[in-house]
């Protein structure tokens, strides 16, 4: 059972199944993590131990202008776990003046391209685009040649075993490639269990639709 089987099942139910191309999808993974980590570093900046939450009991040895940052450092190092600290540091880095243009701004541009990819294949226009000022007329019309929903796998591989040890945390991130595009574009997506692979591990199939078309996805999923 796999994607092809899923497509066959939908065809049997009376759907017309066509192939579409979303050329910027491969870039969506690095773009997503760049943006997500940047936002995390920003949203987590409030955890300084001053107004609420844990506060380090370490007392700085020196007084002076470095006093304040030392307190923050201790509290945040003690209070955040390793993975969170990793994400905060990476997110902070991509927003620094020297790296921003190359990573953060570029990621935002990729995000816009991913959104445009989706808009170009869906038949329903993107309601969010109507509120933007940089919209072309082509983006606003119902496209008769467009599709109602997209079908693709949820993951690239089956679920990793708990005792499988991979020292590289990046592998975990890479597995998100199939799901982050919907996040970047701000469109609804749903993962549906659909049979198992040859080893007997469960498989998930993913459906995505244009912004606002949540009910359609739920309807299709109920048939799958």
């Amino acid at each position, binding site marked *: 059972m796999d994607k092809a089987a899923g497509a066959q099942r939908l065809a049997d139910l009376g759907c017309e199944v066509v192939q579409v191309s979303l050329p910027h999808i491969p870039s969506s993974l690095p773009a997503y993590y760049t943006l997500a980590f940047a936002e995390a570093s*920003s949203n987590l900046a409030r955890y300084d131990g001053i107004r609420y939450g844990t506060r380090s009991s370490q007392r700085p040895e020196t007084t002076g202008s470095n006093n304040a940052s030392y307190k923050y450092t201790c509290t945040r190092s003690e209070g955040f776990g390793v993975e969170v600290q990793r994400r905060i540091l990476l997110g902070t880095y991509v927003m620094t003046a020297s790296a921003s243009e190359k990573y953060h701004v570029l990621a935002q541009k990729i995000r816009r391209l991913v959104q445009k990819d989706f808009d170009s294949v869906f038949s329903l226009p993107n309601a969010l685009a109507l509120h933007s000022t940089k919209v072309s007329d082509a983006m606003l019309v119902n496209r008769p040649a467009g599709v109602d929903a997209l079908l693709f796998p949820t993951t690239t591989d089956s679920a990793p075993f708990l005792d499988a040890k991979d020292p590289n945390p990046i592998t975990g991130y890479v597995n998100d490639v199939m799901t982050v595009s919907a996040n970047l574009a701000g469109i609804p997506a749903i993962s549906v269990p659909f049979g198992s692979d040859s080893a007997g591990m469960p498989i998930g199939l993913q459906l995505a639709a244009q912004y606002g078309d949540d009910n359609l996805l739920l309807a299709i999923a109920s048939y799958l």
Partner: protein
Amino acid sequence: MAKKKLFSPASAKWDDPPNTNVALVDAGVPGSLPLLNPECMQLAARAIIGLDGKVQNQSSFDRKHYFYSDQPLGFQITQQHSPIGRGGKIHLGTNEGLKYTKDIRISQMQLEQDTAKSIHAVYPGYVLTDLNRAGVALLEIVSEPDIDTPDEAALCVRKIQTLLRHIGASHCNMEEGSMRCDVNVSVYRDGECRLSGTRCELKNLNSLKVIRGAINAEVRRQIEVIHNGKQVEQETRGFDARQGKTFLARSKEDAPDYRYMPEPDIPEVHLTDQWIEAVRATLPELPEAALARIQGQYSLSKDTVETMLDEPGCIGLFENVAKGRNAKVVAAWITSEVFGQLSYRAQRLQDSTLTANQLSALLDALEGKMVTSTQAKQLLVEYMNGDVRSVADLIKAHGWEVISDEGKLADIAKSILDEHPKEIEGYLKGQKRRLNFFVGKVMSATKGQARPQDVSRIVHELLEKRR
């Protein structure tokens, strides 16, 4: 002047007890979100229009990140990329106290959050944080490098104060912290490009006097550095008013990287041309236009009109009361008596109980000689104390009805004259001061309810008849 903060419904009042006006988002409590306060957009638009700038149809907010105890979220929400206002100018001329005319151009005007207040030196080793101010709306007005002298800088700030107070956008009160000023200073040699020098930023200048002093001190310092053969380093500096010197607050190496990022929780703001025009329609006549018109229309001096323009609501009061009355008298009463009372009460005209009708009636009574000047001033005090009775009622209540019946006065005077033959003799012999004696007696007899001039005239006539 907004009632609430820029992104939260907490009160923006500046002098409440510490940490009493704090919404969840002002304290950065996890899960709380900012919500744009439309009143702040309106006030910002008013200020921008008043400063001759263009309110942008599209603007957006950004996050400026740095860690400090007065920054609860770890970032400030500001407008780095697309501010709400662009362009504009501040006109300086003889009206403002400059001997020449000059326009200081405005680069942009942006809305941003104020920080919390940090209070040092109360408990040793501790910094106290008052979150009342955290999130209050600020409008940052950035000028082009057009200013050439400390005087121009101070007058520019003062002009902004006058304008924004007049428009009702802000109290612009540097003492209460509703207006702050940072100045960038650089110097250049004659013949060199005007902007060739390295600039230093002087922060936290909190009065016009300090602005002048700080700029002068910094210019002196930079010139000395250059004369010593060194380079001016780009720094952020403060001003020690007591020593008359600027001091290093932060060097270029310590300058933080703010890691600007679009504020994801506030959508792009769209202001239609109609919305902007509607705001423009609510603006009062701008000071320059009003100054010219009122000087001409009522033949008043520039100083008088400027004094009235400086107080919000005053021109409205003046024009109302001046209808069909002597404009100079009205203006004189407003600028000396009314303003004197306001000053004594530390009150703004708009907060006073005095109405245009009350002032009009008071001046009519004075004009019609129904009250003396002294009595009219007392009526003014009573109206400003909150009395709402009519002038007629107040006159009666005080027993001030004036005896104007000359026959009656003559009778009283005659009987007093008859009682004092010696003084009559003295007067007829040439002792003119006997007249005052009789006038005083008549005034006592009438309990002050006669006009001294009338009494004097009548007594004089009667005395002369006895020659």
